[in-house]
């Protein structure tokens, strides 16, 4: 199993291609088994992962275009490991949750999902900038198809908006990546797109600044940061449930992952310099979108906007420049993936039954669908960051870490725990509490076996990682501390050296 990462990337692709010849009736079973095998493989990756090693593991290197140093180069460390596992898991759960009766052309859906899975895992394990970029862009295509083919009434508008928006951003990112390669060439007269080589590159602060901006645009569009967030509500509003789940759970994480993988280690000084801008944008993003979420009438839109708000928390965690905040941010990526994925699934379930997502059409659902309400309640509590759920660990660590950078900003960003509670609880109250306002809802059935199978693992993880996050946090922390040590070592300006805190490891090594 030396080539586990290659298998992880290309197994869904092969299975997806083979999926075209699978019979329509067995398409879902096929999809589940493929995604299940993929998930087991990703678990195997976790178990054979060396937890004490902070470097890249399972690396594979195969030059493709030697003249330009473009190669097939993959590897995982603590930062990407769990995002890969999460991608595999969310895909599996998404496929399980598909309703064969409601979705026409389920075969195409399964195939697109498998392609999507390939691109997602590809992005997170790529160590070559070109490869990263290729997977990054490829991931748009299946998603475009999923939204455009199975979406709501304005799906084409939403799909095109989603595509063009993120595509425009990533082109600028591509320019940034190419110029880094060029600068590397200038310095060493070697062409390479190997990320690990790039980490050795020492750039002047001014160059860092511009390159940071170029990459920032690509990543920020994807995150999506304020004011580049408006494609997301449209995409979520129109996407089918499964599309929203994967979009929120995994695709958004590509942006934040990009910041961790590229921006921070490549441009430590620029990152430190840009903290004020990022923080202002993130805080606007946290509070503003949370308030917009409160104003929504559509359950799915609330969760869509709340996603943006939570991504803001992740952003400030990434730029906390210390192990607590950064590890917290990465943990929060996983947590947000699980929680928002589950919430979108839940909204999808009620939409499938009633054909509406408007809260005014519901009320008193807790009396009719107690199990549904309970699971929704658990996810809601995780979403507002209740201790002993997965949501708290990340949010707490992020805010804790960020406090070191700016206490005032932390207080403002911390209001997210209040306004988060406001919109989530009002959502819960409007749809689940009170009298049954809509008589036609009385006949609604509680969750069936398929839905429970999809949701229970998420509930289990939400609770498990809330109580015992150590198996996940430890590898993350290891890699994060290595990252911070490298950044501190690389940083040129004294202020950056001061801001980046990498205590633990440095002490131990002495």
């Amino acid at each position, binding site marked *: 199993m030396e080539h586990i990462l290659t298998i992880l990337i290309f197994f869904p692709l092969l299975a997806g291609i083979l999926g075209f010849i699978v019979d329509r009736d067995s398409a879902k079973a096929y999809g589940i088994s493929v995604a299940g095998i993929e998930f087991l493989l990703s678990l195997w990756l976790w178990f054979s992962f060396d937890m004490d090693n902070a470097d890249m593991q399972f690396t594979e290197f195969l030059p493709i275009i030697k003249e330009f140093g473009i190669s097939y180069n993959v590897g995982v460390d603590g930062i990407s490991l769990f995002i890969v596992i999460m991608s595999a898991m969310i895909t599996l759960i998404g496929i399980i949750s598909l309703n064969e009766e409601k979705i026409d052309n389920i075969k195409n859906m399964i195939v697109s999902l498998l392609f999507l899975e390939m691109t997602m895992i590809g992005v997170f394990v790529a160590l070559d900038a070109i490869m990263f970029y290729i997977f990054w862009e490829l991931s748009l295509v299946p998603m475009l198809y999923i939204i455009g083919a199975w979406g709501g*009434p*304005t799906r*084409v*508008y939403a799909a095109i908006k989603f595509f063009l928006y993120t595509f425009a951003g990533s082109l600028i990112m591509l320019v940034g990546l190419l110029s880094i390669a060029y600068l590397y060439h200038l310095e060493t007269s070697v062409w390479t797109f190997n990320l690990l080589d790039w980490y050795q590159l020492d750039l002047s602060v001014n160059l860092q600044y511009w390159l940071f901006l170029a990459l920032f645009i690509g990543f920020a569009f994807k995150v999506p940061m304020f004011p580049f967030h408006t494609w997301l509500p449209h995409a979520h509003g129109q996407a089918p449930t499964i599309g929203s789940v994967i979009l929120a759970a995994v695709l958004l994480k590509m942006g934040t992952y990009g910041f961790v993988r590229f921006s921070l280690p490549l441009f430590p000084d620029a990152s430190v310099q840009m903290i004020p801008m990022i923080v202002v944008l993130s805080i606007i993003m946290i509070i503003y979108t949370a308030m917009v979420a409160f104003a929504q009438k559509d359950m799915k839109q609330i969760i869509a906007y709340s996603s943006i708000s939570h991504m803001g928390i992740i952003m400030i965690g990434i730029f906390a420049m210390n192990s607590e905040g950064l590890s917290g941010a990465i943990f929060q990526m996983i947590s947000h993936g699980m929680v928002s994925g589950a919430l979108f699934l839940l909204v999808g379930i009620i939409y499938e039954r009633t054909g509406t997502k408007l809260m005014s059409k519901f009320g008193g659902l807790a009396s009719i669908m107690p199990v549904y309400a309970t699971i929704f309640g658990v996810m809601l509590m995780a979403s507002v960051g209740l201790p002993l759920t997965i949501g708290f660990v990340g949010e707490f660590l992020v805010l804790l870490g960020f406090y070191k950078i700016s206490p005032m900003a932390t207080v403002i960003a911390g209001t997210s725990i209040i306004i988060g509670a406001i919109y989530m609880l009002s959502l819960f109250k409007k749809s689940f509490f009170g009298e049954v306002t809509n008589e036609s809802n009385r006949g609604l059935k509680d969750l069936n076996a398929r839905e429970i199978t999809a949701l229970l693992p998420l509930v289990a993880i939400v609770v498990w990682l809330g109580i015992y996050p150590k198996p996940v946090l430890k590898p993350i922390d290891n890699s994060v501390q290595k990252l911070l040590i490298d950044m501190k070592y690389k940083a040129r300006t004294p202020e950056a050296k001061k801001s980046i805190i990498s205590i633990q490891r440095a002490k131990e090594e002495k």
Partner: protein
Amino acid sequence: MYEFIAFYIFAISTVILFSITVFSKNVLYSMTSLAAGMVMISGFFFLLGADFLGVVQLIVYVGAVMALYAFAMMFFDTTKDVKEKYNSPRLVFLLGGLMAVVFVIIFSAPIIGENLQVLSPITDGVGNAQAVGKVLFTKYLIPFEVAAIMLLVAMVAGIILAGKKMDKSLTTTVLPLVDKESEDEILKKESR
């Protein structure tokens, strides 16, 4: 001196003949003047010492190409004057004139004029059929063969095109994929 006189005679006649070609309403007139112009062009080639090229010009252009045009003309109704609608004659003359002026200025500009001083007199011709043959079959052998194949392909294509019935369109009907207007309406409603 002869060269001087010959050049100007040829030059004036080609300009006139080609102008007739371009501006005449009658196809036959244009074609005839074109053929005549071609002959005049070959005169330049002789003047420049490119004898072989001149001969080829006469044979291929004046002979083959013009014959081809003449045959093709039989398919069309050429007795009538060509009726055309000229959308923006001013633009045409402006552009054409501009281009002519620019060319003249460029080629007669003192900078270029100085740079383009004749290194060797034109009369010291290198071009004769023998020399051309040598170059053509050594240095330009592959382009020559390619040109031959191209001519063959063109011949085949010409025969096929002229002979085969191609009255059916290849494009299929376009499916209306998205009703954009209805989508816009929904969006407008939403934003309200």
